[in-house]
């Protein structure tokens, strides 16, 4: 791959890769490091990939593997029980528009990693269920199942954020009728 082609690949993919990394990791610095490391691996090994159309999947798969490799050596977070999430619970939907991006990202990070990775890939909107299955190296049925449960968990987390003060986007109050303009 020429230098120009590589730059174009970075241009196209570094932001979505960073967003994916940010949802997985604990800090912006770690996410940036994961993103950089993924491109370094591409620069050293990516030429082995014969089908250049699979570059995007290769990058996301590599980043995810790199993340898992690092996490393997760390203390795991306590797992969230699946029973916590009721798939059919759609009666109370959080008002996502009332939350800022930081609160949504935080809620996503609080979802257990097994559900968080497919959720983020899904919400990045660049990936079909087939591509998510390829990136995470799991069957399509597992992707559907994890997305279904992951969304339920995310809704729960968002509802708890909605109740918390300071996370809402507050719009400026419009001036009252009859108020003079000085």
């Amino acid at each position, binding site marked *: 791959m020429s230098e120009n082609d590589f730059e174009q690949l*970075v241009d196209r993919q570094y932001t979505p890769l960073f967003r994916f990394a940010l949802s997985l990791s604990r800090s912006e610095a770690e996410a940036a490091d994961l993103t950089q490391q993924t491109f370094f691996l591409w620069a050293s090994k990516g030429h082995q990939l014969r089908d250049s159309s699979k570059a995007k999947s290769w990058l996301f798969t590599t980043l995810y593997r790199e993340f898992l490799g690092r996490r393997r050596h760390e203390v795991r977070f306590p797992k969230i029980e699946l029973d916590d999430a009721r798939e059919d619970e759609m009666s109370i939907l959080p008002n*996502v528009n009332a939350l800022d991006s930081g609160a949504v990202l935080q809620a996503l990070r609080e979802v257990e990693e097994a559900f968080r990775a497919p959720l983020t890939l899904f919400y990045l909107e660049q990936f079909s269920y087939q591509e998510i299955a390829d990136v995470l190296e799991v069957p399509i049925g597992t992707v559907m199942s994890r*997305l279904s449960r992951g969304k339920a968990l995310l809704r729960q987390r968002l509802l708890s954020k909605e109740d918390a003060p300071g996370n809402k986007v507050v719009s400026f109050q419009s001036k009252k009728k009859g108020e003079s303009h000085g």
Partner: protein
Amino acid sequence: MDNREAKFILSVYRPDGQDASDRRFAEALNQVRRDPMLERWFGASVAFDAAIAEKLRVIEAPPDLHENILAGVKVSRVSRWKNQLAKWAIAAALILSAALGSLIWHNTRPAPLAGWQTQALDVISSLVRNESSFDAQSNQPDELVTWLRANDAPAAQKLPDNLDKLSSLGCKTFSWNGIPVSVICFARPDGGLIHLVMRTSPAASDRIREAEVKLIQRGEWATATWCEGEMIYMLALEGSRDQLRSYLL
């Protein structure tokens, strides 16, 4: 198809409609059209998903990330090119030496570094250039060895005596062809760094071959490799083999 099955399938339906023509969704979408309750659920679900996607879309990468990636890869490419050049230069020097019948120090073998050693030097270079971070940090080498053992990573049974006296900076682990490798970085008294790379030996035959200390100079890197028990060690520093020998005594 019942509503539960339809919901299961539609959970992967992207909110921007990219999947509208995918035949796998056709039956579930038909079900949505037939059932007002399901239609209401689907509408709310798509709106929820679209709102989340929109929130994630506004997250920007750090402003310097793009440049750092390109600059970092350029440095790596130059480094690899230099390594290639160094390899050719070493090979040419060795051929010339052989032709002239020169004597090479008995512990030096004119062999290239193995793949895991090359990757270890890349990992170390990346740490030195602050392009990657340590997995664990401590100025006490014993603490790092304990951390490595606790994380099932290769770790020295006993650190070489001369390293044991140095302060450590941190350790990192990586995998080479599925084989775990660990690195501990130490601060030398002269201000430089020295790195101990550890991995398990894959086979008894390799252990026999690796019995002696092999000193190899590769570009700016001097390396010493030896085997002890079931472990293979490589000591590396940016400098000369003479500097490295002082840590092997």
